[in-house]
């Protein structure tokens, strides 16, 4: 990436969603979505690992979820970058197997193989990348990827890792509601204060932005990482299970009921009442009717939680509801009428409908991608850090150096001292979160400042400097002011995949590709050898050759056949094949070689390899 590069760099925006994913590209004043061959923009974020080792991603995988309920992985985004009790909470709702693996991190087990959620997300990203490449007719190696605003550093890093595994350079992680606001305000006629309400499949975000002459400034952001449209589906699922008298301990039942619930939710967004016929294995079909009022009563507490977040975001921005000029809705679940009603009631204005809630995030990401590629200098996005950053002080308290909702880049310096006489080193534990005690926040990293001159406690003056760049990446420097001793680190979460793991997974995928290629080549070679043996014999019967030549050709063909029967490796087969073809080629009478060629073609034609590439 250099300034003199004459050709504008092509960078796509990718909305890596809990339910669906999609890519978009900057086009003219706005952006356009990249669709697949059928014109579909949304790629379900679903991966199905078939028993034969093949993998299906996207719509094909979603179609297979009832056929392979415990092999079809969806909502991996709810697991990415998570560990410990959070994993158990999510796992209880999922029909595939999730457990805590190494370092308490979420792992997904399918057919005896273990996957990190990052890997599943990488498979989805690869599918999105392939779709985008075929829509553009061009290779893509970089992207801006969106995440919920409320994602912490571990979840963001895990998303970056997924991109790397998928062969994409992640130029920036952008918050979903921020991206949606870019798509909304890009036409330049929307200067003012906008509230983005983003109810995705697995997370809820609300952000307030001020749009001012091409500068999009985030004023505040708030949200809930454990609240989304999936939770609406979950409540409906429980209702369906109760009505059907079934229990949720079977993967097939869970997938079937989930699929039914999703359908019901969509229908109830349009009609006052919806009826569903559900057929669970070896049971008579059951009709279940749910009225919208009943559905709304079910989800009301969840919707109220989102409204409380809306008010918090307004207060954090030091505004009142009257200051909001427009409300933008993002995420499929904002089609639920109760959501729209409650927002209108509290904010005094109907949400605006000019932006497609399914596409806005990807479109906005594409706009930011174009800015970061250096193609558009008219636009600037000023984003904030979603969670406070600080260090652990004496007694386990979390001392915040950078407060959440600070515009990035940002920096802060704070002075500390030692607690023990003669102390020559201090350990700095860096945390992220809003809670008062460090143990309730998430640790991002740790480092030690060595070489302090022994002094009485409280005398050394240790300046700790935090600097957060435009990517939200934190760099911490500690300096002892009397001696000038300095130590610093770039904080990459100690959480999630380690750098080594990412490297190993990358190598694995390259190695696997190599293995796959070798295996494929061996199969091709065997087929070719078989065809040569049969073809040569047929040709020999047709041509009349001197006995000694007939003999040497026959001998060579027999040797090749024996190798095939003994299951010899590719290298030995190749030597024998080469020898045979040399013999047949040197035979003076080209009748035979042409006869060999002809029958070879016939043989290979009837022997095409059935496995897909």
């Amino acid at each position: 990436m250099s300034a003199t590069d004459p050709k504008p760099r092509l960078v796509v925006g990718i909305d890596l969603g809990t339910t669906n994913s999609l890519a978009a590209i900057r086009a003219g004043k706005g952006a356009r979505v990249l669709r697949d061959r059928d014109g579909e923009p949304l790629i379900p974020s679903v991966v199905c690992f078939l028993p034969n080792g093949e993998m299906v991603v996207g719509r094909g995988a979603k179609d297979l979820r009832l056929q392979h309920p415990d092999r079809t992985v969806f909502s991996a985004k709810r697991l990415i970058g998570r560990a410990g009790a959070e994993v158990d909470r999510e796992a209880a709702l999922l029909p595939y197997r999730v457990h805590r693996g190494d370092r308490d991190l979420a792992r997904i087990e399918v057919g005896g193989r273990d996957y990190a959620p990052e890997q599943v997300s990488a498979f989805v990203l690869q599918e999105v990348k392939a779709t985008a490449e075929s829509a553009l007719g061009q290779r893509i190696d970089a992207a801006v990827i969106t995440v919920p605003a409320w994602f912490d550093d571990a979840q963001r890093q895990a998303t970056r890792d997924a991109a790397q595994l998928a062969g994409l350079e992640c130029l920036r992680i952008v918050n979903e509601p921020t991206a949606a606001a870019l798509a909304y305000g890009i036409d330049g006629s929307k200067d003012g204060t906008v509230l983005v309400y983003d109810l995705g499949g697995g997370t809820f975000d609300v952000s307030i932005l001020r749009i001012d002459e091409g500068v999009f400034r985030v004023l505040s952001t708030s949200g809930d990482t454990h609240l989304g449209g999936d939770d609406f589906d979950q409540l409906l699922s429980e209702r369906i299970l109760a009505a059907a008298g079934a229990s949720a301990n079977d993967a097939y039942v869970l997938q079937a009921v989930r699929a039914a619930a999703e359908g019901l939710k969509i229908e109830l967004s349009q009609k006052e009442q919806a009826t569903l016929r559900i057929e669970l294995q070896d049971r008579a079909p059951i009709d279940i009717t749910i009225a919208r009022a009943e559905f709304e009563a079910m989800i009301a507490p969840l919707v109220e939680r989102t409204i409380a977040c809306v008010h918090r975001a307004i207060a954090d921005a030091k505004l009142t509801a009257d200051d909001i000029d427009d409300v933008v809705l993002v995420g499929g679940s904002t089609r639920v009428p109760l959501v729209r009603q409650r927002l209108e009631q509290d904010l005094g204005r109907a949400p605006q409908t000019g932006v497609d809630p399914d596409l806005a995030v990807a479109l906005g990401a594409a706009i930011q991608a174009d800015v970061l590629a250096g193609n558009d200098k008219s636009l600037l996005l000023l984003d904030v850090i979603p969670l406070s950053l600080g260090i652990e002080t004496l007694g386990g308290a979390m001392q915040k150096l950078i407060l959440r909702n600070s515009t990035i880049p940002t920096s802060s310096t704070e002075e500390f001292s030692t607690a023990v006489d003669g102390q020559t080193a201090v350990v700095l534990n860096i945390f992220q979160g809003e809670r008062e005690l460090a143990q309730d926040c998430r640790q991002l990293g740790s480092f030690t400042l060595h070489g302090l001159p022994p002094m009485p406690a409280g005398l050394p003056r240790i300046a700790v400097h935090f600097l957060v760049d435009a990517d939200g990446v934190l760099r911490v420097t500690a300096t002892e002011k009397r001696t000038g001793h300095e130590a610093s680190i770039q904080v990459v979460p100690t959480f999630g995949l380690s750098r080594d793991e990412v490297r190993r997974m990358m190598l694995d995928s390259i190695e696997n590709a190599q293995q796959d290629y070798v295996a494929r080549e061996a199969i091709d070679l065997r087929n070719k050898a078989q065809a040569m043996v049969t073809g040569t014999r047929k040709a020999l019967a047709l041509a009349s050759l001197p006995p000694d030549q007939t003999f040497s050709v026959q001998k060579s063909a027999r040797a090749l056949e024996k190798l095939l029967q003994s299951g010899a490796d590719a290298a030995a087969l190749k030597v024998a094949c080469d020898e045979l073809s040399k013999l047949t080629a040197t035979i003076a009478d080209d009748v035979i070689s042409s006869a060999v060629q002809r029958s070879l073609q016939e043989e290979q034609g009837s022997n095409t390899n059935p496995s897909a590439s």
Partner: protein
Amino acid sequence: MMGPTGLDPFTVFGVEHRLDLDMRTLERRFLQLSRECHPDLHRAAGAADCAAVLTRSAEINDSWRTLSDRWERARALIELRSPGAMDRGRTLDPEFLATALELAEEVAFADGPDLASLRQRLNATCDDVFAELARACAEDDFAAAARRLHESRYVRKALADLDARIQGGTA
């Protein structure tokens, strides 16, 4: 307390050292400086330039945060014009402290319709304190300004607690 990093936000923005600044002018200045210095619009620079752009951009954002909040702006001004005044002004009038205590109690026990009227009253008190602070600054009496700023903390804390109670009630 967020420690000052030796940064003079007024100088970063190229404005006079005074409390009553036109906010819209300041905001436009912020947007203009951001365009000039944000790393996203200056990505091609070399490593040394990159670090400089990053530091400058952080200075602009941090200065804006100080200048756009009236209390933070006052604190920065007092520290610049009379270094140490904030530390010296820490001892508060016992009479004021008694009033502050009453206020905190009122917030803790207020209920129902009282909440809204109390909020209004606290907001008005904040405005009054700020007006006195601004007057002191205009008269270059930074010792008095520092005392007013310390006092304002109690009123602002009471207001924040009240808002938390109101929010907690609706959530």
